[in-house]
């Protein structure tokens, strides 16, 4: 209906317009590279627009293309830069998929976290100052010896950081994914058993009883639509957590796949919305997409800042009355701890429960001394360890009660 600009025969197109359409095609490719969902229909419409006088003023064309090609707020915000860079030759970063400034080479992708597992992944990524990842394994030489024994009996009880070797790691990941799936099924079943209609639906009752000549024999009741429990996971992907990130990512991938309503975010110094990337069926590919999204800018963990972003931009959308927010972090805040406290209070008002999972909690002699965790704990409903598969599984009864 709108392809009048492209329907002209090839021979009629002179050299200039051929150049323009080639340039347009290149622009579309740039947009796709930057995460825009641009299809054939949009390309045709764009060509039609250029043919019908919108190209005369760059400002007008930019505005027109912006409406046509953007699909969400993030697109909307980065479009002007991309357009100027491409058509007007202004120097803007060419690929703005990752808003972080760090170079990919200096930052280990999350994929490599998953692949190399819990031992090496952290040491290159020691962007965080606290606690130095290099010291960590040395400081716990005693536990290193225990590793052999527990590995032999049951993976469920092994601390994630002690799981080594690709085979075992894969096993642990698969177990995390299975666990997520099992949690979903059980939670849903509990939901259904409770449901019961309570109000008469007159309109439907009449319709249903047409076959009885309009005498209302079978009653139709209206029931409130039950909201399924929604799980929102905020995962700390900073250096201090690097030993655990791999397994938790896999767990989150499982959760997103299986829960009808689940959202996931990663944070370190910034917050990244990763549900879409995680919805990729193949876990490896999903992690690949993540590595593009989640490269941090500089070191440290700004939990408070990230929560602020979450509260401001995402909370209204992802949180409803039956939402459990699950924060997976060690609570080492390098930013302002008071801010973290304030934002936690905000968050606590919004959602039904906040679960804080701290993998470090199981470490011997660990006490929640860090400024960040101290500020956050008053607002947390459940503060639990999560360093083994068994401890993850132990969460399920708690979630089922919500």
């Amino acid at each position: 209906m709108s392809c009048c600009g492209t329907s002209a025969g090839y021979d009629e197109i002179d050299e200039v317009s051929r150049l323009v359409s080639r340039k347009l095609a290149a622009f579309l490719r740039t947009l796709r590279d930057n995460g825009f969902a641009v299809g054939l229909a949009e390309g045709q419409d764009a060509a039609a627009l250029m043919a019908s006088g919108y190209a005369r003023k760059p400002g007008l064309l930019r505005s027109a293309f912006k409406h046509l090609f953007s699909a969400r707020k993030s697109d909307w915000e980065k479009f002007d830069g991309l357009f100027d860079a491409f058509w007007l030759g202004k120097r803007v970063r060419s690929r703005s998929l990752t808003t972080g400034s760090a170079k990919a080479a200096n930052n280990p992708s999350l994929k490599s976290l998953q692949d190399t597992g819990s031992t090496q992944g952290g040491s290159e990524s020691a962007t965080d100052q606290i606690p130095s990842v290099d010291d960590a394994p040395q400081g716990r030489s005693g536990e290193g010896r225990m590793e052999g024994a527990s590995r032999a009996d049951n993976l469920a009880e092994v601390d994630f950081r002690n799981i080594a070797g690709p085979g075992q790691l894969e096993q642990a990941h698969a177990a995390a994914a299975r666990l997520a799936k099992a949690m979903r099924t059980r939670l849903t079943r509990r939901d259904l058993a409770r449901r019961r209609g309570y109000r008469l639906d007159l309109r439907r009752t009449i319709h249903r009883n047409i076959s009885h000549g309009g005498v209302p024999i079978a009653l139709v009741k209206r029931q409130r639509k039950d909201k399924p429990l929604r799980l929102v996971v905020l995962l700390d992907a900073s250096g201090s957590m690097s030993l655990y990130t791999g397994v938790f990512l896999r767990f989150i991938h499982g959760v997103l796949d299986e829960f009808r309503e689940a959202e996931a975010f990663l944070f370190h110094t910034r917050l990244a919305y990763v549900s879409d990337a995680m919805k990729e069926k193949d876990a490896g590919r999903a992690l690949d997409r993540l590595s593009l999204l989640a490269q941090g800018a500089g070191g440290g963990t700004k939990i408070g800042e990230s929560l602020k972003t979450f509260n401001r931009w995402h909370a209204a959308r992802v949180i409803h009355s039956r939402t459990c927010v699950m924060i997976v972090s060690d609570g080492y805040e390098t930013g302002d701890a008071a801010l973290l406290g304030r934002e936690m209070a905000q968050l606590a008002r919004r959602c039904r429960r906040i679960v804080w999972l701290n993998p470090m909690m199981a470490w011997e002699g660990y006490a929640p001394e860090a400024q960040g965790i101290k500020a956050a704990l008053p607002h947390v409903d459940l503060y639990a360890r999560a360093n083994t598969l068994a401890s993850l599984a132990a969460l399920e009864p708690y979630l089922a009660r919500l």
Partner: protein
Amino acid sequence: MKTRDEIAQALAASGYIADAELATAVSLMQRLRRPLLLEGEAGVGKTEVAKALAGVHATELIRLQCYEGLDQSSALYEWNYQRQLLAIQAHHGSDADAIEDRIFSEKYLLERPLLAAIRRDKPPVLLIDEIDRADDEFEAFLLELLSDFQVSIPELGTIKATTIPHVVLTSNGTRELSDALRRRCLYHYVDFPDVDREARIIVARIDGASASLSLQIAQMVQSIRKEELRKVPGVAETLDWAAALVGLDVRDLHDDPEVVQDTLMCLLKTQEDKARLTREVSARLLGKVA
């Protein structure tokens, strides 16, 4: 087909002060025949865009308010069961086929907004408000309707659109919309207006608001938005406040800080925000207002 400036003027004439971007969006709607998806925070005037658009095209506005559990029978069409039952009893004894033909005819069809929108003589503006509140299933159905503009009613056959309506969708972001729907639409992010535009909105909407007072109000609201509030006041709240001030015969905000403080309830809708904007804070903000 109107140019961008003409559209901006026409929007202004029907009471909506648009920026250049929005005028472009409206002209694209006409040209490409795509629906327009408006996103933005609550209270920035998304719904008003549709109303103004109806004014521009001098046509009817058909509104479909979405909510959780909205289904086809309340959005598209429904048979008038009571009348059908009556008809069956009234024609008792006559030929069954004849009765069937009779009761499944236009006469017994209840038009709901979506069906109404495609059966008008003049293309109306169809406002699908807060699409994010509807279910996924409804969104998929809507997508189909928006691309084909025809509806099939099993008992009656396919109804083709006589006109293609101007479709405006709004979303508050309570749920992530599907990529397919987003791609189908033109996208426009509605932001809070800048001081100048907000002042012009006040002048246009509130009778008796002078230019200088409007500017002061807009500046004040702008700085209030920068405070950390739970509910940021939208344009509708600004207009309420302006109306209140005009009603109380305030000519200059500096004349009576007392009244300003007392009428802030038009802007601040939670106890917490009210507590945060103390007299001292509002005095400080007022100090910045020219």
